[in-house]
């Protein structure tokens, strides 16, 4: 089969000493980032992205995606040992993970979490291997109007399917678009929204926004809870690992369900966080021991971890094949691809085979290597959190500031980072969703470009978005999703009568 051949070619690309070293470095960095609050998956990748400018794109994306893996694994460590979720998607892991640690079963919880993550990610990567080329081939038929309609679908689904006020989602998303529009208009060359301030000619970089929103903002939020890093100790030895592995097959159905939930939420703009919560909720409702969830059930750790990793991984599928990231971290990786001069989307599979399949192959290896690393080094990583807060907090902020600076060598960006941090804090507290804003910031220019091109093709006629079955179908679906909250209320009322 063509895909398997391509995959083996990808393995050949990955298995060079340089790339393997980068992989290990990436995983270790990723776990450390996942363990520390304020340096999340999206944020960590954003900070380290500028450092990869001098590397060949294939090596760079391998390291960055391994950082992503490491962060996915690392979030579980603090959730279970310290009841502090290192990542938003590890919150659900604390529900049963921490009670297990309190009962002295931390090793079992950690092994369960890591293995479930491995399984979830593996399923997602296999899916990507076979599905992504198909989607890409299909998307080769896309023109500007079709691409714009897919972007429209993505953003409308945020408004329609998001929980919380659709008005706030709309405002947050439009803020992202607005910020994306700041700077020089590539088509006409005129300066937009700079209000005479030449520094704004560069516009707002999504990396700065991500570091501020998800980094500084996260830290400010965790400050409210007060931070006392007194965690349970964990020892993982081979006996515990084997014992837990013997117990895990019992939960194969939960695992399968979680994989499906995760893959679905990863491909659609949901992401790992909603996936983990949904999976936990579903598992609780459908399990025989559902009532015991929250007291330290292994199943309660398996469900969210499998889903979160499946989602985090499958978020890369639409990113690679369509150029539409399924999660904020995928959005950052997308931005990275753009910076390296690669066009994510169907052409990537045609023109940059080495890159794409090298990346996919590295996902298999990175996943496996990550599992081995975390199973063996948990005490080391946990020890990081015992560094006193008054040392680690300023160090994290220094790292964020350096990360913000290295994007464009611009001092002003550090101030923007701080501003975005305050915005992130306030938005989180007022339930203004951050993901649509970040996606809008990353995709804004491309969405506008496709819109303009489509409008030029049609000479100003909006009907082009309904001109054929494909684009018409997607546009119609977008509108349905957009007005879904209103529609569902009307349907409910009609049914009531």
């Amino acid at each position, binding site marked *: 089969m063509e895909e398997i051949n391509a995959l083996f070619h990808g393995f050949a690309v990955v298995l060079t000493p340089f790339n393997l070293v980068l992989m290990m470095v990436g995983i270790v960095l990723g776990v450390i980032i996942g363990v520390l609050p304020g340096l999340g998956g999206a944020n960590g990748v954003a900070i380290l992205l500028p450092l990869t400018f001098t590397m060949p794109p294939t090596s760079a994306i391998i390291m960055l995606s391994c950082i992503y893996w490491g962060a996915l694994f690392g979030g579980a460590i603090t959730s279970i040992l310290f009841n502090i979720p290192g990542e938003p998607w590890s919150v659900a892991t604390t529900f049963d993970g921490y009670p297990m640690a309190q009962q002295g079963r931390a090793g079992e919880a950690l092994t369960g979490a890591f293995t479930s993550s491995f399984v979830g990610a593996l399923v997602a990567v296999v899916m990507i291997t076979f599905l992504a080329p198909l989607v890409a081939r299909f998307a080769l038929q896309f023109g500007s109007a079709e691409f714009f309609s897919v972007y429209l679908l993505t953003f409308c689904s945020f408004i329609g399917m998001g929980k919380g006020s659709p008005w706030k989602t*709309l405002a947050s998303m*439009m803020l992202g678009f607005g910020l994306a529009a700041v700077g020089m208009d590539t088509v006409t060359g005129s300066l937009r*929204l700079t209000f005479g301030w030449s520094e704004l000619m560069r516009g707002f970089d999504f990396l700065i926004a991500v570091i501020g929103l998800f980094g500084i903002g996260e830290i400010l939020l965790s400050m409210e809870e007060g931070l006392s890093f007194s965690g349970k100790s964990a020892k993982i030895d081979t006996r515990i690992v084997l014992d837990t592995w013997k117990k895990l097959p019992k939960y194969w159905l939960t695992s399968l369900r979680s994989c499906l939930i995760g893959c679905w939420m990863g491909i659609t703009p949901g992401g790992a966080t909603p996936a983990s919560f949904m999976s936990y909720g579903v598992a609780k409702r459908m399990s025989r021991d559902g009532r015991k969830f929250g007291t330290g059930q292994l199943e309660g750790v398996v469900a969210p971890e499998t889903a979160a990793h499946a989602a985090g991984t499958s978020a890369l599928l639409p990113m690679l094949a369509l150029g539409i990231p399924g999660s904020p971290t995928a959005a950052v990786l997308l931005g990275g691809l753009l910076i390296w001069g690669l066009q994510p989307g169907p052409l990537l599979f045609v023109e940059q085979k080495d890159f794409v399949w090298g990346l996919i192959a590295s996902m298999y290896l990175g996943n496996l290597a990550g599992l081995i690393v975390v199973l063996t080094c948990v005490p080391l990583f946990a020890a990081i959190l015992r560094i006193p807060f008054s040392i680690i907090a300023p160090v994290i902020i220094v790292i964020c500031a350096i990360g913000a600076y290295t994007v464009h*060598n611009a*001092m002003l960006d550090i101030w923007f980072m701080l501003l975005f941090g305050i915005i992130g804090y306030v938005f989180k507290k007022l339930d203004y969703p951050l993901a649509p804003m970040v996606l809008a910031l990353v995709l804004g220019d491309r969405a506008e470009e496709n819109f*303009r091109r489509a409008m*030029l093709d049609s000479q100003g006629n909006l009907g082009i978005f309904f001109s054929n079955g494909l684009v018409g179908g997607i546009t119609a679906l977008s509108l349905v999703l957009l007005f879904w909250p209103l529609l569902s209320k009307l349907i409910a009322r009609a049914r009531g009568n």
Partner: protein
Amino acid sequence: MSDQDKRGDSNGVSMKTAEIFVAAVFVIFGLAVAIDSYRLGAQWGTDGPQSGYFPFYIGVMIVAASLVTLVQAVFGKTQGGGLFVEWQALKPVLAVLIPAAFYVLAVQLIGIYIGSAVYIAGFMVWLGNYTWPKAAAISGAVIVSLYLMFEIWFQVPLFKGSYDLLQLIGL
């Protein structure tokens, strides 16, 4: 104002106040976007949409959505009433935010390396109750490793500030 709102005001910033403030800021931002885009031209030009076409509608949507939120906040019940943040909880947040702001100012003036050294050491002494020598030692170690990592290994020069003090020691 309900009893809960009144209590809220004394313990912290009420959710209602915060919602109104943020929605109002959004409206102002949206207006700014729309007005500037209108100035650039938000119509259909001779060869396609003018520069301000897209952003104009973005601004309009921001204003519309935020007006709804604003009205909801003023007249409706905000998420179960309650507080945006308690004064007690705000203190540690400000304890991180305000020094961070000073840090960024320091970086602007004396660069990343020295600014970070001062920030870390200062943080350790004031909020961690470390002694100055210990704080200086640890922050010094961090800065030295950052310098080695960035200037030498990655070859990525970091900002030296408006008043480059590292020049004095020949770096």
